């Protein structure tokens, strides 16, 4: 029965199939070319970059859903992304340090008591911020399953509480944007403190090493994460498409276009908004939880308000209200960005001055962003649509 619904849905929206097909081809292509399982044309670091880019695309889908479809310009979704990373990072760090401590004590005369074990791990993890006690928020860090649940729960509940407070008092438009930005700033500032319990500005590190898999090469691990990223992106794309194409999606779009009118029609606008806000926060958190083990390190600077604005930039350049547009925007801009800042573009010498792209890339990005807002409000995705019509 459900299969039939899905089939009907896919037949009605062939673009989903096109998207999934392209994603599959891309994934298989990278795998074949990779060092881990293929002929080794694509380096491991590039596989990681591509995997991370897919995660960013997933975050962009969440952003597109909440902004492009529901009209809530949230400047806090990258904070949820970071929170997801922190949650999985806690387990990765705890489990790996536990293994290291156990290994170091394997030859000791007496087996460790639970207290000694926890102290030893605490010293390893919190030594940099001058502590050794486990803060309360690490209570579940020894359990993979619980911490995985927290990836969803912590950002979800934060989004629920914040969204409930904000929507209830009818904070809308730019006010909401500024409020979400303030939330992000508060979270980042909190994490920057050494006594936040999350290692202050050191953040969590060494996340690329999976506990118990020290023997496995990073070439393999990076591919696993790449597949995971692609899978999560595919699933969330389908979910997002299901939401926007359903009756629910119609209401959400109606809220974007005229909130008061929808309210007068008898819909519980706040409920719909809250639903979208929370579900996208969770999507962003999942993206973050896959992203940071590939990046290897997470620190509070990642959560700074500017990151959330970049997320909005990607979606705006890619095209709002168009799911593949968001994906295109995120992939296009973030790859271009690493291309420019990575020194792959030769500097241009003007005789009296040399344009160094590392320095000028942000200027270029900022200006092109202004141009996109002014002249292509539908972004790159909009260009695709125009092309289709013509």
């Amino acid at each position, binding site marked *: 029965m459900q299969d039939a619904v899905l089939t009907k849905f896919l037949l009605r929206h062939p673009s989903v199939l096109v998207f999934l097909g392209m994603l599959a081809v891309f994934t298989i292509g990278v795998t074949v070319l990779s060092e881990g399982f293929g002929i080794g044309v694509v380096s491991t670091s590039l596989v990681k970059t591509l995997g991370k880019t897919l995660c960013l695309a997933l975050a962009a889908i969440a952003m597109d859903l909440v902004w492009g479809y529901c009209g809530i*310009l949230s400047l806090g979704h990258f904070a949820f992304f970071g929170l997801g990373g922190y949650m999985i990072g806690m387990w990765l760090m705890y489990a790996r340090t536990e293994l290291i401590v156990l290994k170091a004590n394997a030859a000791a005369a007496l087996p460790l008591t639970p207290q000694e074990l926890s102290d030893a791990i605490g010293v390893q993890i919190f030594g940099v911020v001058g502590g050794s006690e486990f803060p309360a928020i690490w209570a579940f860090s020894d359990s993979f399953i619980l911490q995985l649940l927290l990836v969803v729960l912590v950002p979800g509940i934060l989004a629920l509480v914040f969204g409930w407070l904000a929507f209830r008092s009818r904070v809308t438009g730019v006010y909401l944007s500024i409020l979400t930005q303030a939330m992000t700033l508060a979270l980042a500032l909190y994490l920057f403190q050494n006594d936040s319990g999350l290692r202050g500005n050191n953040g969590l590190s060494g996340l690329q090493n999976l506990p118990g898999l020290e023997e496995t090469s990073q070439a393999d691990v990076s591919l696993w994460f790449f597949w995971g990223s692609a899978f999560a992106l595919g699933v969330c794309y389908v979910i997002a498409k299901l939401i926007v194409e359903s009756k629910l999606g119609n209401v959400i779009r109606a809220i974007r276009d005229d909130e008061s009118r929808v309210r007068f029609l008898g819909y519980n606008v706040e409920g719909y908004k809250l639903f979208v806000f929370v579900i996208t926060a969770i999507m962003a958190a999942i993206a973050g939880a896959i992203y940071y083990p590939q990046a290897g390190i997470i620190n509070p600077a990642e959560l700074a308000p500017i990151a959330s604005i970049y997320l909005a*930039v990607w979606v705006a350049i890619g095209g709002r209200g168009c799911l593949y547009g968001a994906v295109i925007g995120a992939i296009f801009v973030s790859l271009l960005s690493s291309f420019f800042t990575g020194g792959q573009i030769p500097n241009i010498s003007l005789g009296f001055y040399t344009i160094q792209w590392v320095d000028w890339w942000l200027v270029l990005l900022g200006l092109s962003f202004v141009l996109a807002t002014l002249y292509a409000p539908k972004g790159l995705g909009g260009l695709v649509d125009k092309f289709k019509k013509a």
Partner: protein
Amino acid sequence: MRFLLTIIMSVMLAVMSLSATTAQEADAFRQVLSDNYKLIQRSSTKTVSPVLEAIQNTNFQGAAEFLDKWQEKELWFRKSDNAFVYVETDDKKTYRLLDVVDGTGLGEVPKKEIKQIKPNSGVRGLLAARLVQFQLTDPDVEVRRKSLESINRDPKLEHLEALRIAIEKETDAGLLAEFARIERILTIKFDEDPAARIEALNSFSGALSIDVRASLNLLLTTKLAVAKTLPEDINIARVIVPDQTGVNPDGSAFRLHGLLDMGGDQTELTRDAAYDMLVKANLAPATIDPAARKEILIANIEDGKIGKLNVSELDSDEARDSAYSDLVLLGKAEAFLTEDEQDQLISEHIFYASYVETNQEVTDVAREVLNDINASVTLNQFFDLALDGISLASIYFLAAIGLAITFGVMRVINMAHGEFIMMGAYSGYVVQQIVPNYTISIIIGIPVAFMVTFAAGVLMERLVIRHLYNRPLETLLATFGISIALQQLAKNIFGTQARPLTAPDWLDGAWVINDVVSISWIRIAIFVLGILFFCMILFVLNKTRLGLETRAVTQNPRMAASMGIDPDKINMLTFGLGCGIAGIAGVAIGLFAKVTSELGNDYIVQSFMTVVVGGVGNIWGTLAGATMIGFLQKIIEYFNPSNTLAAQTYMIIFIIIFIQFRPRGLIALKGRAAEA
């Protein structure tokens, strides 16, 4: 001409009479030395005092130098006639002799003809005290002041006597008060008469200066001790119950109240520390901590077993406990007291803190005075906090006031507002590079910053914002794009390191009201600037043609246009005005913050908060918002002073909650304007 001659004559006469008195004093000095040469050569603490008295009574100028050299073992005498001399030497074999009175050379002699005078340490102490007296009665006010300061830094018993003598001779009224104050501090510290000390203590009631507080705290120093029964003959400050009492600032004890505690109060002596004290006082056997116990267990492993237990089973504290008690039974380890036995021992003893000062009357008065002082310190701290709050509020206000126009009145979300602040600060910096005089460069810098940012604002309005009116989210994004471009541009031009924007000298330092309350002049200047801007903008918006037209255009552009107002022009000018003011704020902020390309970033979120909390569309609202945020942040910092990050976090959370209850801000517009 005659007049001039008269002056010269009288000056010469004065000099002559001066040298006449000096000659008399020098003779007297010489006489004293030759009368007492034996006592000086072989000085002892018992006999030297009358000599010193006599030397001082000569009032001879060089006497201080004489005592100083004597103290430093640089005074010699000629064996042939017992005349005192200063010496100079190049090779340590032959010495040039100098007269101690007028410094004339007395020829060179070999070393064996002279002898060095080496006073013992007791005499040197007396000499030092006498020297202090010389300095304290020096004719130069500055020398007296300096010597007083050095006494205050490191007071000694012998200073007290010198101070009391010098106080009689002091003529400068301002210095006399300081003399008296330090004399009282020394009295508290060194005087042997309790009545005098108590009188001095009482005179300090309500005094705020740090040295007085330090001397009182020193007087009330306590040391912890433990005994079976409370001793009778000591000055007890408080009796301590481990884990149950805390200590007040005045040294008395108070009882902790378990559940009612706010968490800030801490016990003075934890149970473990109390037991350690018992161990140190040899009143209890030492504990064996887990690490030591582990050592003992490891030392007793035999064939993978400790006693009956396998080593691999010892992975919990309970198992280790039982293994250890097995060892104790076997006589292989020392027994230690259980927690209950330790508690029993602790309860059998009494812990107390006693004052180092033995006179109870003195400590009682001191405690009373200290409590009194602490109360007035707290009062002054609140005053200081209020000043800090005002100053932070004026910074926020200054940063946000440009935004109050562009965002508040025009409803344009300008995310590049912070970059205009930065632009203003850099303009000030560039002006300072060209004009080296700091005062002039600030005076030039302010209008230059205004012009630069005004021009940039107008340009931005023409090129971007104009196309995005009524599309606030797009405006937000486009201006954000401009913001990152401008930031990077500034980084490319000025580099990443901070550039100094130096304040003129007259803004250096602080206005010190008393030892607790002070505020720097820059902050006062910023406060004044904030007030000035506030009045100016209020005037422009409410009393000028431009203000009227601005309000008309923002309320209803079409209607305004039909009345002959050009909305395009008005929007352009208003936006430029808002940006220009941000530029001036940038100069002010640059004076105390580092000028970097990220300067604006630090203020953008706070500025928006200020405007939103205060109430959009209203300059009064911005003032109210800045005041609230500034004060609140300082109050939060007061409770948690070590952590400004946490203060900011709580601040933002508070604002988020605040907006729940007053979504339109502190001062909300009513009626039709609110709908716009």
